[in-house]
């Protein structure tokens, strides 16, 4: 029971970190970046290559993955999404799916479809609490999630740039009139989201050490679900949605059925959206004239 709960929170923490990328980009650019899951996969490969082929110590491998993904996020935004700033949301959505396939197939070309075995990067021993054994990976994942959550909350509520980000997400035109460079702000959001994706990639691959070009796809969709579940656009919503989703998934696997666990996850999403269409913490859109 306790083991399952910890595992659920740990898996959910990975979803939450990924969901933050979806939710921040959605909040600012009002677009669903479906390539986000594949950025995770690239992050995984970046860490894998540096650690396995070049024998870098884990901390540097993670740092390298963050740099690669941050740069990738900025490049994707600049090349694929920025030219479509004025386009319909459908065009942007299709482009995002295109970018997703592009990344997956590039990975297929570079690393082939053979699964790679991800090296063990987290060397913290597991601890035993009562009857439950908590792995080092789970501890690190949950702590990483908490640290990221606190850091992002401080960033968006206390810093000038963070406040500007919230201003842009609410009204781009008015933000421009304040002297805020909207394009730079969007670029920064993609950078942060993608950097977090790299961390999520390493944590995910540490818990489930098989790395393939499609590794990011399913967690990406689940994290997107978590973001919607918590209320898309809301940072604490992504966090709560992610953790709840992880717990539901692990408990579904443990007590109901392994095959049905994904079905249960999505069924919960559907029920939540029927009861509260904006998600758990989503704010209804309100216009005051």
């Amino acid at each position, binding site marked *: 029971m306790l083991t399952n709960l910890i595992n659920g929170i740990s898996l959910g923490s990975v979803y939450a970190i990924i969901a933050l990328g979806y939710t921040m980009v959605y909040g600012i650019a009002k677009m669903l970046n479906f390539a986000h899951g594949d950025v995770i996969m690239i992050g995984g490969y970046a860490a894998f290559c540096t650690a396995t082929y070049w024998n870098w110590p884990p901390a540097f491998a993670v740092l390298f993955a963050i740099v690669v993904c941050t740069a990738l996020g900025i490049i994707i935004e600049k090349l694929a999404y920025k030219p479509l700033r004025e386009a319909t949301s459908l065009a942007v959505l299709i482009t995002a799916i295109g970018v997703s396939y592009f990344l997956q197939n590039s990975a297929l070309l570079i690393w082939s479809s053979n699964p790679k075995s991800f090296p063990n990067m987290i060397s913290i021993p597991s601890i035993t609490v009562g009857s439950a054994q908590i792995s080092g990976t789970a501890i690190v994942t949950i702590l990483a999630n908490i640290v990221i959550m606190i850091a992002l909350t401080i960033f968006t509520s206390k810093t*000038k740039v963070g406040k*500007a980000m*919230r201003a842009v997400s*609410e009204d781009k035109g008015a933000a*421009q*009139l304040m*002297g805020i460079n909207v394009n730079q702000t969007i670029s920064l959001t993609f950078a942060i989201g993608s950097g977090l994706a790299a961390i999520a990639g390493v944590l995910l691959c540490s818990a489930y050490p098989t790395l393939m070009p499609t590794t990011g796809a399913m967690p990406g969709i689940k994290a997107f679900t978590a973001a919607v579940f918590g209320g898309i656009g809301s940072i604490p919503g992504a966090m709560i949605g992610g953790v709840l989703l992880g717990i539901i998934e692990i408990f579904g696997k443990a007590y109901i059925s392994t095959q049905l666990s994904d079905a249960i996850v999505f069924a919960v999403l559907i029920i939540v959206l029927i009861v509260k269409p904006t998600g758990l913490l989503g704010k209804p859109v309100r216009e005051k004239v």
Partner: protein
Amino acid sequence: MSMLKVEDVNVYYGSIHAIKGVSFEVNQGEIVTLIGANGAGKSTTLNTVSGLLKPKSGTIEFEGKSVVGVPAHKILREGMALCPEGRRIFSQLTVEENLQMGAYTRPNSEIADSIADIYDRFPRLKERYKQVAGTLSGGEQQMLAMGRALMSKPKLLMLDEPSMGLAPILVEQIFEIIVEMNKRGTTILLVEQNAQMALSIAHRGYVLETGRVVSTGTGAELLNDDAVRKAYLGG
């Protein structure tokens, strides 16, 4: 010398020719108003001057320097601020955060003093500084929007329909504040549907009709102009 000089500007929305060769100027220290009916192109003109829209042709000079094609976030640094139509405050941010955003381009060390200054002028905002701006009343939101625009210390403040949707007593108050800001040295370019009020405080005015300037004069001249009276002042 004129502070802002707009000459023969044409603006299109797609294939719609919204502004047709508009010219006007604003001198240092003046209150200038653009009046006209809905759809005359008043807001479009302000949005073009502030860089949100790009004109197809024409020149816009601020303090002798061309600002055509300069994006909005850089125009603010030149010393022009727009308080947009419908206020457009950041409703999820607090009152104080809204004011901080207004000073985004200025060094952090100067912001606290400016905020204190705005609170002096608008005591209501001080009472509500921690409140989320979306919870303010319409009049308070307008004060916040004007305060926010002043936070960049503009030489020229453009106001788009500041009296829209406000009760008459608040309208008077807003106009008093505009006059007061002008006396303190801010040049004002005011767009209003409330022509009576706007002309009564303005040094000069321009009448816009379907994207063209059709008449110009001092505030008093336009108030007494028969055609203007008929069209905009209810006879």
